């Protein structure tokens, strides 16, 4: 009687283990399937030429590219523009290209922002959010530093004034010092 009871208890424990294992497997599968494709440090940055951006894209091949995602409604983005303008003035001759990509849905707000700040670097708009969705930008603003080989070397979330400026300059200097890739 006692042996039969033990058998039943063991069988019940086995069933529970089966269910738990199966449930965990399904949960893991769900998480893997739902994980978004994101561009992070070390990844190749998507081609800007084929991203359907509104505006004129400068030549970026073989150069160090600073890609900044911004919006007119984002206060730190407003703070970051003068810093990028200074970077553009200091490093363009040595091979840096600054590309600021707006995610504004309202073209009027975008135009007003550009008119007010009048940035000297390239400003484009990701009207359909194609690129920003592909990259899966983690915060606004987010700045990607792309090496001459087209891979992301640094990523900065938000803009924290001089602190971000200093970090950007350090990384840009390193990337500019690296030799261009052989053709």
């Amino acid at each position, binding site marked *: 009687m006692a042996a039969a009871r033990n058998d039943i208890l063991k069988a019940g424990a086995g*069933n529970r283990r089966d269910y738990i294992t*199966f449930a965990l497997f*399904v949960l893991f599968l*769900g998480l893997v399937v739902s994980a978004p494709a994101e561009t992070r440090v070390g990844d190749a940055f998507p081609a800007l030429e084929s991203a359907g951006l509104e505006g004129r894209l400068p030549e970026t091949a073989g150069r160090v590219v600073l890609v900044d*995602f911004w*919006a007119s409604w984002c206060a730190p983005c407003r703070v970051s523009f003068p810093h990028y303008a200074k970077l553009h003035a200091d490093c363009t001759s040595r091979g840096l290209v600054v590309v600021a990509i707006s995610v504004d849905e309202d073209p009027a707000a975008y135009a007003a922002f550009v008119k007010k700040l009048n940035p000297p670097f390239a400003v484009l708009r990701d009207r359909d959010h194609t690129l920003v969705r592909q990259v899966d930008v983690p915060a606004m603003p987010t700045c990607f530093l792309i090496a001459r080989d087209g891979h992301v070397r640094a990523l900065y979330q938000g803009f924290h004034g001089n602190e971000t400026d200093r970090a950007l300059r350090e990384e840009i200097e390193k990337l500019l010092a690296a030799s261009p890739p052989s053709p």
Partner: protein
Amino acid sequence: MKNSLLRPVAIALTGLLCLLACSGCTSSNLARVKPWERTALADYTMNPGRDPLATTAAEHVYFSREASAGGRAVGGSGCGCN
């Protein structure tokens, strides 16, 4: 015989429930606002403290009524004696 049939059905049902739960978590039915989609949320009108005068007046009324002056943003007790 009955138990041997019930077990796979129970496992299949459990799996189906898990899948449904997972699809609920990952479906687009949930409002997940991405950082680049916060145009409306970043609007001035979305700030509940956008009118300091109205906030001060509302707090005055609230704290007088509740006898809890200093109960929100001022250090000290909430007894109304400060």
